[in-house]
């Protein structure tokens, strides 16, 4: 009986094998002319350096600052959890700023404390409450994600504790009337139009297909991007978080002969989507926002990721040599996404402390009136806490790595 079963399995396996041999021997076109995918890949060279403002404020200051030894800045955000890497990038940047500051200012040794939220809105209120109760903490860099920022903004507001987020991009965060919330980068209302301009401009796409997921982030960004695309937008589709099979969406894209696909969502779906598109003979470009800009995208999309471009309101810190070498020396790793944003946000607060703003209300007033260059960009906030002139960068995949290609959307 068992033998028979083994035999049947083997027979099935063998059939599979023979079938494959037969198929693979067929000479087939690499990709068909009639089945979608217009333009050949656009070649935009990778950026090798970026200009930094000449008079950028640096954490070291003039070395003459004095402050009480209890003065403390805090990072609140993910240290562990599924998205820990982003948090690690950020607090390593902050740590670098504080080290540089303390080394140069012997009479002002600022303490640094970290609070872990795991990036989870449900777990963030605990650490935030705890931090706001510590009177010595006069400024915070965080929280990195939109969900947790939304959940905890009121706590900061009640305790009048200034905080600068180095990564949260949901546009509605600044609509809550909070006076202590500042965003250290462009939001998705800036990223969407910039992405649209990038796709139809630099990438030269004529027929763009937009696919969005079912998250707040994906829906919001999908809306701002499609508004910006205008007539170049030839179709849209919506997918779900956790979806793995995109064949019906791909069939529509191929029939529409799109030459660019924008995916508004995260890499967990974006990567298999891109991979399946390319497997079906798609030859156009694939563009995604910061939710896709992660090495995981390349790992999961494999070879297909070579057609991918990303937009991100983050600045490539690895291209600022002084920052890159100092960061590497401290952390034994290259700066990651949002490292420079963390560094710059900490610098704004440190400069305030050096200028004598050494309690919560004074430091808050300092940030409100701040109007100076940081290493990555100019920092000046409007009354809602949005930067007045944020930058969006383009990135692409080159030899299996994500590399910057310059500012976009200007």
């Amino acid at each position: 009986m068992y033998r028979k079963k083994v035999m049947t399995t083997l027979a099935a396996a063998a059939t599979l094998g023979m079938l494959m041999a037969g198929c693979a021997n067929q000479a087939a076109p690499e990709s068909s002319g009639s089945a979608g995918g217009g333009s050949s890949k656009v070649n935009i060279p990778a950026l090798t350096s970026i200009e930094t403002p000449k008079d950028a404020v640096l954490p070291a200051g003039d070395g003459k600052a004095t402050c009480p030894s209890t003065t403390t800045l805090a990072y609140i955000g993910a240290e562990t959890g599924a998205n820990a890497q982003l948090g690690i990038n950020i607090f390593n940047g902050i740590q670098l700023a504080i080290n540089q500051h303390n080394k140069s200012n012997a009479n002002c040794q600022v303490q640094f404390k970290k609070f872990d939220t795991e990036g989870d809105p449900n777990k963030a209120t605990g650490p935030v409450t705890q931090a706001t109760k510590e009177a010595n903490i006069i400024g915070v860099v965080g929280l990195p994600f939109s969900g947790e920022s939304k959940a905890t903004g009121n706590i900061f507001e009640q305790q009048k504790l200034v905080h600068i987020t180095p990564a949260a991009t949901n546009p509605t965060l600044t609509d809550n009337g909070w006076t202590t919330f500042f965003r250290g980068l462009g939001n998705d209302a800036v990223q969407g139009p910039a992405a649209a301009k990038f796709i139809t401009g630099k990438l030269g796409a004529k027929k763009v297909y937009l696919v969005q997921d079912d998250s707040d982030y994906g829906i919001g960004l999908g809306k701002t991007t499609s508004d910006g695309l205008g007539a170049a937008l030839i179709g849209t589709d919506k997918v779900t978080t956790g979806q793995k099979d995109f064949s019906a969406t791909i069939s529509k894209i191929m029939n529409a002969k799109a030459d660019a696909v924008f995916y508004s969502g995260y890499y967990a779906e974006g990567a298999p989507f891109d991979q399946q598109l390319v497997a079906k003979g798609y030859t156009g470009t694939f563009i995604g926002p910061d939710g896709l800009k992660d090495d995981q995208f390349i790992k999961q999309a494999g070879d297909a990721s070579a057609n991918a471009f990303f937009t991100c309101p983050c600045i490539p810190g690895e291209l600022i040599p002084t920052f890159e070498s100092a960061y590497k020396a401290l952390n034994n790793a290259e700066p990651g996404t949002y490292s420079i944003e963390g560094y710059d946000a900490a610098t704004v607060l440190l400069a305030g402390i050096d200028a004598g703003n050494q309690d919560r209300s004074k430091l808050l007033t300092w940030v409100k009136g701040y109007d100076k260059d940081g290493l990555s960009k100019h920092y000046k906030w409007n009354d809602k806490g949005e930067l007045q002139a944020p930058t969006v960068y383009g990135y692409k995949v080159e030899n299996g790595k994500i590399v910057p290609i310059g500012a976009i959307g200007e």
Partner: protein
Amino acid sequence: MIPTLLTLLPAASADDSSWITFDIPSLMQNFWSATFDGLTFGSIYALVALGYTLVYGVLNLINFAHSEVFIMGCYGVFFTLSFLGFGPSAPNLSVGSIIVNLLLALVVAICASALTAFLLERLAYKPLRKRNAPRLVFLITAIGASFTIQYTIFLVRGPNPEPALTMFKSRPIFEVFGTFIYDQQLIIVIAAVIMMVITERFISKSRTGRGIRAVAQDPDTATLMGVNKEKIIITTFVIGGILAGAAALFYVMKIPSGVQYNGGFILGIKAFAAAVLGGIGNVRGALLGGLLLGLIGNYGQILLGNSQWTDVVAFVVLVLVLLLRPEGILGTSLGRSKA
């Protein structure tokens, strides 16, 4: 009160012009590619659905942990192929050696899935059977076993999917109704159908198959007639595991980055629905249900305009079918069916 509540409701949706619209031209245009893609995924559903159906037929148990039997097969494929040097790029190997490699992966996947199914039966269900536990306890145990396996994998492998594994570069081989058929689609559909036909023959013709049907029909009488019930049960689990292992290879072929701790969950639910749609306990029903579910989901999402409708359409159809035929399309009994 009601008007107040209504005003509190948010506007239907951001762009409510697209609430429900039927895009018939799009369906016409994409009909054939939706059909071929639907059949491809449908055959994977069907292979997994067989595992649910066989166990249900014999034990009247919905083995919710079958999705984990499947995902263990996926890990089997992943580890074998990574060990053999496959990676995100399509390998630069001759056709012959790719086949040998894939067959090896198939064997490992089948072993991994069958072993998982075997252990599941021995460790989770057999002790309950010995104590004559009520049926609800089996169901809860099945759900518990499913979570236990999922989160054990999570602890070992982390939250991210394993890196993509490309087995070969999928190529179009011929054109039907203006749509290309890819070698990958053909391999999956034909191999899956062959495996199902063999399973069906095995159950209707072989001695063991007769035993399985006998136990499904009347376990006590079957035992009296000399059928070793325990042996039949374990065989049923193992057959389900073998088919899930094969499904795992096809699934990873189709979705190279699908190997993830909870990657079997949704597929498992769909496969279970496919089994119910075709008539749970019925081998031919699983095949029919799987293919139908794949097709309906694909047609539905194209007709209604976006992929978020896939599951809505598939499950509405499932409910409608069950309203008209509560036993599923082909009826439920493994014992009585001629299969």
